[in-house]
């Protein structure tokens, strides 16, 4: 079951500026969905559409299997959000900020103390929010978003501007919310490295189009399928014939032989075969593609389309 599901979602700011092209977002319930893409790819616009902050022009948005435009208030009651920079009342304290949202969400007052406890801001007392560090503001924004114990959390680049320690803290907090409180999280970022340790599913958007969507494991498999092995021997021509018995896609260069990444068993067998044929092996090296490289290639592929 999908917590968020969009079909053919398109949006344009002007006749010449189409920012989203038929976005099909599918966020499974209970997942942490990393919504990745470079700046200007359409992430924030998509998330704003999911929250009803921009009027939908084309396509369908379903939250919890219900159309957003028909059940806006009911669906927002189950959703918490933080879009771009933290939105907080700087002249008020953390507790007063949450008191405002407690009124708006019509949730019990004890939720305020619980939310502050979860984000580690229970001891801020009478300190005004404008005196908070960016990390504290981000955490208070999360507290605002989880105050009413939503089933879905939509976070737009929540780690922006945080130091490495703050990023780790935020990651731990989101993992806790997902595993212990069962909240489905959609988190956008322009850096894969920043969220690859957090997410279970990913969607990659580039130039307004979804270029990849699936589990993180699927992305990792893609990484493995696109990785290569390099072999350098005393006799590359003879070695290539032996390699071809293991894998067909072999390229012989002046210096080395390159081939798709083999399984551990095949690597051992290839090595044995080369030794049996008395071919000296100088180098046998797996060149794994980084996830980041796959990500960049997916993005660049769309840009050049």
């Amino acid at each position, binding site marked *: 079951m999908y917590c968020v599901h969009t079909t053919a979602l398109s949006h344009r700011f002007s006749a010449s500026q189409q920012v989203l092209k038929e976005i099909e977002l599918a966020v499974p319930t209970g997942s942490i969905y990393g919504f990745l893409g470079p700046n200007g790819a359409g992430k924030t616009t998509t998330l*704003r559409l999911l*929250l*009803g*902050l*921009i*009027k939908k022009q084309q396509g369908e948005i379903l939250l919890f299997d219900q159309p957003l435009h028909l059940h806006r*208030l*009911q669906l*927002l*009651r189950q*959703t918490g*959000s*933080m*879009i771009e*920079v933290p*939105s*907080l*009342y*700087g*002249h*008020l304290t953390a507790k*007063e900020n949450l*008191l*405002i*949202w407690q*009124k*708006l*969400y*019509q949730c019990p007052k004890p939720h305020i103390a619980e939310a502050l406890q979860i984000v580690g801001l229970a001891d801020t007392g009478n300190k005004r929010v404008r005196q908070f560090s960016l990390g504290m503001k981000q955490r208070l924004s999360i507290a*605002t978003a989880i105050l009413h114990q939503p089933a879905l959390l939509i976070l737009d680049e929540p780690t922006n501007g945080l130091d490495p320690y703050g990023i780790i803290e935020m990651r731990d907090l989101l993992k806790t919310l997902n595993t212990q409180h069962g909240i489905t999280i959609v988190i956008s970022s322009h850096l894969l490295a920043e969220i690859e340790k957090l997410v279970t599913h990913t969607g990659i958007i580039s130039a307004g189009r979804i270029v990849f969507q699936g589990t993180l494991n699927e992305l990792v498999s893609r990484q493995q399928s696109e990785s290569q092995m390099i072999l350098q021997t005393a006799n590359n021509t003879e070695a290539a014939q032996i390699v071809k018995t293991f894998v067909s896609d072999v390229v012989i260069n002046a210096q080395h032989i390159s081939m798709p990444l083999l399984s551990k068993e095949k690597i051992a067998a290839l090595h044995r075969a080369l030794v049996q044929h008395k071919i000296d092996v100088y180098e046998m090296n797996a060149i794994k593609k980084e996830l980041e490289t796959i990500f960049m290639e997916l993005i660049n592929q769309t840009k050049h389309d």
Partner: protein
Amino acid sequence: MTNSFTNCLSAEWIKKRRSFSSWLVVVGACFIPLILTIMFLVYPKQILDLHHSGQFWRILQLRSWETMSIILLPMGIVLAVSLITQIEFKNNMWKQLHTAPVPFSSIYFSKLVLILLMLAQLFVLFNIATYVSVWIPALLNRDVPFPLYAINGTDVLKENGAYFIASLPLISLQFAISLQFKNFLVPIGAGLVLVVGGIIAHSWKYVYMLPPAYTALHFGEASGSTKHTDHNLTLWALGYFVVFVIIGYLLYVNRKEKG
């Protein structure tokens, strides 16, 4: 709907804590009475003349409302209304507010009602401060008697009610403008142009059509100094108020981007 409105209103009430607009209410209400107090302390003859007039409270009320109605009240409305909407713009809150599960109408009308409550708060404080302004000189100066005359509560309420109604069109117009612009200077500039325009047009025969001039026009009628028009200002004010509230709401609710 009613529930979400009252919740929105109490949320708005929390937002105004320690805000400039809430301080403006206190300062605005006490400014003229403070000047009166100082004047009565420095020139006790002024207050003695009031005692001899036989219409102590009425004349005091007119004196305190004079500057208030012509300049301070309209200027204060422009500033306070712009500051209230600015709380959302300044803190980048519109987008967050619009993801709350409350109807847009509750957000709009709770803000408007908050402004009206603040105006009522201003009037209550202003009347109390005006009352105090004649007690302090009597306490500090033996030659000044205490104002032990009965206050005609109905008159005070009627007068305050008339100024309140006269303020409504400017409030609703300024509210509609302030919701549209992130840059604080735009609504402030527009509001000041309206207020100054109202003052300049004071003797124009069609001044009854200019909402920013209504508080000053009411003062003119109350003091008997001018009788500008045979038109019913209360009806004009209420009519403008309804029209501006509707236009403001339509502009607000039909914005393509809600933050």
